[in-house]
């Protein structure tokens, strides 16, 4: 079943059904980033840290050919055209250290395919990015929901040196025929609810401000709080969603799922 945002179908990344036709040179390399943010404290002679896991990057496979024949060069160029660069997925047999290979569903990194001509051959290098299988998305249980102050269990868990927090956005438009929209910065199922990857950032770019508050009723903003969400629209789905319904006065609420304590913290709710 396709993912939906409201009544708009989110298309899956097209699969070309093709396999990468060439075999690269040694050394084969694979990179898998685990992005995190660490805060260092003065405690324990400044050795105390609290680290937030912010996600799991896709596997990256570097492919290079120091010498590639003109025939293979044309094969590579034709293949690049067939999968429309980084648009369609294909299968790459990634070499393992024991000599075997593992097939991954990948796309070209969104960079130019460059082929340098040599005297009687060419050389090329590129990076493939793994496309995660939606069926492998993690599922989390919800043990508690807190609306204002953290529970005792959550307080204890927040002291851990390792933290993982997933932002959850819920949008409900006034038109009751439009299904509620559940979005996050990653694909996950929390408390039985599937959240689609669509949230790029919460704060304004270049700032660390998640939410700004004003309590002065005489201000032009009537003292309302302000929060910014940035949703991905590379596939124009958010544009289609906006055109499919009226977002005026839609409610949007932001929750933070604390993985360590399986607690949903309701951060705030607002109107668009």
């Amino acid at each position, binding site marked *: 079943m396709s993912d939906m945002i409201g009544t708009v179908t989110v298309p899956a990344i097209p699969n070309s059904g093709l396999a990468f036709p060439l075999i690269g040179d040694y050394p084969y390399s694979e990179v898998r980033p685990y992005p995190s943010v660490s805060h260092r404290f003065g405690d324990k002679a400044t050795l105390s840290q609290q680290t937030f896991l912010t996600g799991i990057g896709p596997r990256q496979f570097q492919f290079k050919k120091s010498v590639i024949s003109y025939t293979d060069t044309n094969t590579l*160029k034709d293949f*690049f055209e067939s999968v429309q660069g*980084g648009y369609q997925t294909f299968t790459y047999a990634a070499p393992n250290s024991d000599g075997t290979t593992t097939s991954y569903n990948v796309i070209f990194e969104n960079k*130019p395919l460059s082929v340098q001509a040599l005297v009687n051959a060419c050389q090329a290098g590129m990076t493939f990015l793994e496309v995660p299988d939606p069926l492998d998305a993690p599922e989390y249980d919800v043990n508690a929901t807190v609306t204002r102050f953290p529970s005792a269990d959550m307080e204890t868990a927040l002291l851990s040196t390792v933290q993982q927090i997933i932002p959850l956005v819920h949008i409900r438009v006034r038109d009751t025929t439009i299904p509620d929209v559940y979005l996050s910065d990653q694909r996950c199922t929390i408390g039985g609810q599937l959240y689609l990857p669509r949230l790029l950032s919460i704060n304004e770019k270049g700032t660390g401000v998640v939410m700004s508050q004003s309590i002065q009723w005489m201000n032009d903003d009537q003292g309302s709080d302000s929060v910014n969400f940035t949703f991905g629209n*590379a596939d124009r789905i958010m544009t289609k969603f906006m055109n499919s319904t009226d977002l005026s006065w839609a409610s949007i609420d932001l929750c933070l799922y604390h993985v360590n304590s399986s607690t949903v913290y309701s951060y705030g709710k607002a109107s668009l």
Partner: protein
Amino acid sequence: MPVGVLPQTLSTAFTESKIFPMLTNTYHDGTPETGLITDTVNNPRSIRTWTLSKRLKSVDLEALKSFYDSHHGAVIPFYFYDPFTEGETIGSTYDDTGDSEVGRYTVKFVTTQWSQSMTIGLSNTSLSFMEVA
């Protein structure tokens, strides 16, 4: 309209790049989101870019520099014959009249300034130009 044909000289380095213009996002679990930039009429196609390094005699360098000057850098498009056209002998497609369509591309310079470095006898320069409609 393209004006003239890029003079044919040997290159010390010849790199062809191609990319499909695309919007992309990557989420925290590695899920990509992509959208090809199209005009909704024509099929998407890649944009080619060539980067050439050259080490030339004075007469060839001056000819190339004059060509660059006459096109005001990255302003006026011109024809370029790809010497590595598939199915053709390398370098055989060049036609200084610009009439032949085999291996011919309409391009314009990417760099907006000319640069060269001179050594005894030969001079070095590099060019980068991209395909345009």
